[in-house]
Structure formats: C-alpha cells, structure tokens
C-alpha cells in the first residue's frame, strides 16, 4: 500500500467534524507552528520539503512564500484557490468534502507562516454545498479557539472566510481570482506586479491551491525532510489524482509521486483498467490544458523508459512526445472515442471560458472551435487541419494569461498525434457522421516508424 498523507483517514465516519478530526491528531501542526516555531522556520521546512504547487503550474511553494513582500504596516493575505474548474479535476472537492478541517488547519499554519491575519478560501460557486461544509467546519474551529483572536494564547489573530464564485473557469487563474474576490469581473491582471508584491487590495498576497495548503500540515508535523523522502527527484511527496473517463474505477487517488503510469491505469489499486474490456486509445494526464498522449506514449516515453507519475517523467519528450502532470486531472479514452470530437469539445470549453480581454484568445478560441466543429461534422477540408495548427501557434505566448496557451496546446497535440484521424474525417465524412457514441470501428493512433540514425 502506498503512503498517504492527505487522505489518510478519509474513510473514518464523521471526519468532517472537529472532534473526530482532533481524535485523529488534527490541528497538531497549528499547535507546533504557533508555539514552537517562527514563521521563518516554517517557510524553511516548506522549502526543504520540495513541495510544488498543486494547482497546475508546479511552482515551488517555499520559494513562492519567500517572495512575499513584507512592507511595514501593510496587511498580507493568504488566499486559497478552490476554484477547481480545469476539466477532469475534482480532487480539491473530494478533499474539502471529506476532510475540511485539513484545509482549515493548513490555512491557519500557512497564514501564520506568512504573517496574514485575514485569509480567504475562494471556492467555485457550483461547489456551494462544499462551501457549506467548510463554513460549518470554520464555525467549529472558531468555537474551539483555533481561529479568531489570540489563538492558543499566543497573541496570533486570524479570521478565515469562504467566498463563493459564480461560474467562470478563468477565476482559477490567480490574478483573475483576486479580481473576483474584490467583487469584479474575473479579468486576469497583467503581471508584473505579481501577487506577492501587489495582490488582494494591492497588498502582498500568496495564492495557493487547496492541495498545496493541505500538504503544509504533514510537512510541519513531520518536517520537510521527511516529506521530501517520498517521491523521485524534484517531484516530492504525494499527489492527489482525479481519474476519469473510460476506466473501471474513476475517482480520487492519493499516490506517492513516482508510481508508474501503467500501474496507475491498470492495477486494481487505482483505475482498474479500461472499462468494458476495451483498449486504451489516449490519455490526457493533467487536466484539459495539457497535451493529449496517444496510447503508445502513455505508459512509455519515446525513448522506451517507463513513464512515471512525476512532473518530470510526464513531460519527458517535451510537447513532441510528452505532456504534463498539470492539476492531476487524469482522463483516459477508450478505442471508440473520437479525438476530433473531443478536441472540439475542449475548444468549445476554452472559447466559452475566455474572458475576452486579448484578441488572440477571444477570437482564436472561437475560430478553432468553429473549424473543429466543421471537421467533426465531416464538412472540413485538408487545409483546415493546417489552419488549426497555424491558429494554435498564433495564440500561444501572445496573451495576457496562460488560458490562451491552454487552449492552443491540446489542439496542436491532437493534430500531431492523431492527424490521420482528422484526415479520415475529411475524406470519409459518411463514416464519422455520428461519432456521438464514438466511432463504430475503433480508430487507433498510428505509431510513427522509428527514424533511422
């Protein structure tokens, strides 16, 4: 059995209540942090742990924390990113639903480390019922003296609030989130300045994902070195993976970094293999924004190494033959699924979610969606395929926030690995006319012939 740090007690009944949570050792990190450690020592432990942001970008958390500006007399804020809208990702919801106090504990310990006296959890509006679970748990924590004035008699004060959003993927981008938290449209800000200098209300702010903040609890309890022992290289600790698509056992799994992808997909401990006895066709390993991989690049890298569940291994081969760990939204597609149709689906998503501030993203996502729709309906032509590649190139890197890239990469990767399937749609429209229930005959990726040296 692999080691768990976040979902250790997730099957204990009533774990969401403070008494049960306490009986499992809950809030120990707050006690340790506030009474025995200085804020700088906590930041040091987080640095040692090698923890990297679990929201998607994988930026080292300790380093991010040490960038936080500390001007005299200006409040600092910690904001938890619980917007979780990346298609294929549902781990934060699972964690908050089962174990809300773990997040609250992490918020207290982290806020203390950063010198914040007011902190917010920004949660997507659709998760309203989860916000209720959090609100109840926060009220319990106030009642027991873990929040509020003079926590544990140490003189440290902290107020913690939940704010619900209202349906907008872009509010997961940290500066859009801050705008939204200020009661505005979720338009990403131009960086710099980064939130560490000017964030919420123009004050120094750290924005961290739910899972990142939860991981601070075991790091403070057991020490950063202990955490860093799990995993491989620069991918330390455990990671929550949201597994979905055509697999036998969809759900949230906590893995030790470094589990082989093959084991993750096919062993009964995790996904339990492909549903209905079918073959795997493709996999999007890190949420909709990362490149799709054809079957032959999922479990092995292009050089024939075992692919592992780490930041490095999943991106081995770059965008030519690799992908990214991203948010850990692991989507598997069976042999009957249509890649053209799925790419159109993702494009529609990004078009719908573009905030509209920059033209390459606003116009480009819409254009890609229309061209993909045409191709999927069997009404496209060969030039459309290259047009898509061109469009993706024009968007990438030319926008205010990374949503533009996130919209472009999946399209570019789908065409790179599944060009024959796009061509098939152009040449044999009758055969693919209703791919709603997938292709009648499977269309599998074609592995390119090895290049002779």
């Amino acid at each position, binding site marked *: 059995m692999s080691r768990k740090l976040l979902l250790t007690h997730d099957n204990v009944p009533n774990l969401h209540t403070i008494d049960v949570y306490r009986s499992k050792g809950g809030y120990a990190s707050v006690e340790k942090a506030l009474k025995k450690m200085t804020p700088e020592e906590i930041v040091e432990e987080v640095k040692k742990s090698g923890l990297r942001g679990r929201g998607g970008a994988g930026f080292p958390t300790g380093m991010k924390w040490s960038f936080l500006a500390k001007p005299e007399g200006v409040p600092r804020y910690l904001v938890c990113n619980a917007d979780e809208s990346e*298609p294929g990702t549902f781990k934060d919801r699972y964690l908050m639903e089962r174990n809300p106090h773990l997040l609250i504990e992490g918020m207290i310990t982290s806020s203390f480390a950063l010198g914040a006296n*007011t902190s917010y959890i920004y949660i997507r509006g*659709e998760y309203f019922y989860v916000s209720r679970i959090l609100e109840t748990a926060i009220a319990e924590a106030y009642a027991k003296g873990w929040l509020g004035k003079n926590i544990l008699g140490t003189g440290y004060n902290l107020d913690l609030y939940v704010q*619900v959003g209202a349906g907008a993927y872009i509010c997961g981008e940290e500066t859009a989130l801050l705008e939204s938290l200020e009661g505005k449209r979720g338009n990403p800000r131009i960086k710099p300045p980064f939130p560490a200098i000017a964030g919420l209300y123009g004050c120094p702010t750290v924005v961290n994902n739910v899972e990142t903040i939860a991981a601070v609890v075991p790091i403070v309890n057991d020490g950063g070195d202990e955490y860093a022992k799990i995993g491989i290289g620069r991918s330390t600790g455990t990671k929550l993976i949201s597994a979905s698509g055509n697999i036998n056992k969809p759900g*949230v799994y906590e893995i030790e970094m470094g589990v082989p992808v093959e084991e993750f997909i096919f062993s009964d401990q995790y996904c339990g293999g492909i549903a209905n006895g079918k073959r795997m066709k493709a996999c999007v390993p890190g949420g909709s924004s990362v490149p799709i991989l054809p079957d032959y690049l999922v479990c092995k890298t292009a050089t024939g190494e075992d692919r592992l569940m780490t930041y490095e291994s999943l991106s081995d081969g770059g965008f030519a033959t690799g992908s990214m760990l991203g948010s850990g939204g692991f989507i598997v597609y069976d042999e009957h699924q249509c890649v053209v149709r799925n790419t159109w689906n993702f494009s529609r998503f990004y078009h719908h979610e573009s905030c509209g501030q920059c033209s390459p993203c606003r116009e480009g996502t819409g254009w890609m969606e229309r061209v993909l729709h045409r191709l999927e309906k069997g009404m496209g032509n060969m030039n459309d395929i290259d047009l898509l590649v061109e469009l993706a190139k024009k968007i990438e890197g030319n926008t205010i926030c990374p949503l533009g890239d996130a919209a472009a990469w999946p399209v570019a990767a789908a065409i790179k690995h599944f060009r024959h399937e796009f061509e098939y749609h152009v040449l044999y429209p009758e055969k693919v006319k209703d791919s709603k229930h997938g292709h009648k005959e499977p269309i599998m990726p074609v592995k390119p012939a090895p290049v002779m040296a």
Partner: protein
Amino acid sequence: MSAHAHGTQHFDETKRANIKFSAEALTTIENLMKRYPEGKSKSALLPVLHVAQAESEGWLSAEVMDYVAELMGIQSIEVFEVASFYSMYNLRPIGKCQLEVCRTSSCWARGAEDVVDYISKKLNIKEGETTTDGMFTLKTVECLGSCGSAPMLQCGAEYHENLTEAKIDALIDRYRSEGTRKNYTDLNYTNSK
C-alpha cells in the same frame, strides 16, 4: 467606513417599492459585507448576487441589480458588469428547477449527450428552454468537478451523479412533487466579524 457602504438603514424603501428582499436576506447581505476589510465591502458582490437571485425567482432583472447596487453603495453598472460575466447568474427568467447537465469531455465520454437527449424528450424542451408550466429549464454547462461520477447534472446546490434514465425519472418526479424552486444558495452566512 461610510455607513452607506455597510448598512441597510440608509436605503430608501419607497424608491423600489416593487422589490423587497426578506429581512433574513437583508441580514445575510449585511453579514456578507462585513467579511472584508473596511472600505472593501464591494468584495461581497458575488455572494450577495447569489442571495439576490434566490430572492428574485432565480434571476436578476435590471431592477434587482439596481436594488443590490443601492444596498451595497455601488453603481448599478458595477453590478451589471459582474452579473453578466459569470455563468451562474441568470439575466432572464428560468424554471423553478434548472437542470444543468455537464457537457465537457469526461462526461461526454460517458454518455452526457444521451442524458441531454433523454431529458429533452421527456420534458419536451430543447436546451435553453423552459417547460410551459415553468417547472424545468434544461441547460448544458462546462465541467462541474464531478468527472469521476459522470455523467452528471446540477440543480440548485444539488449534484446528481452517475446518472441513469431511472435516476433521471426519479429526480424529475421528486422535483415535480416538491414543486419548490432550487436555489444555489441558502441564507445561512453567520460567520462574520
């Protein structure tokens, strides 16, 4: 801090005689506005609009937006800007139960379109339409963070997952017999300064 920004007491009731939130809702709104630092109560706009929508049959008219602006001491256009940006605010009337079916990849791969078709046929409405009795609206939405329990739909604050035709039948029967509006939010925001 100006009393105007934080209180409801300066609100001129006669101006919008046709719009009235319950006393409980007004208290909730006041509480929400206290969750932010002095002078930053505009931050409460998103949750306040959820409350406003729940108080106004599930949608925000221009009058309701004006009313919210006045309650919060901000301009109407600031309210409209936000209300029109986020997908959970309805700027037109909707049925009592809005069935929001996820249409994104993981759900699609597990039959989300069949769910839409089934509901559409059963209720005799197309996407975006409302049944003539005003009971149901059918809508498709993007990933709701329930991809591991696909296909799924949301109605108000409730998630309905691993949908089958039988589950949809039971759900629609239940909603019909309850006959009540399903809101995203309740008014239970007690935790504030």
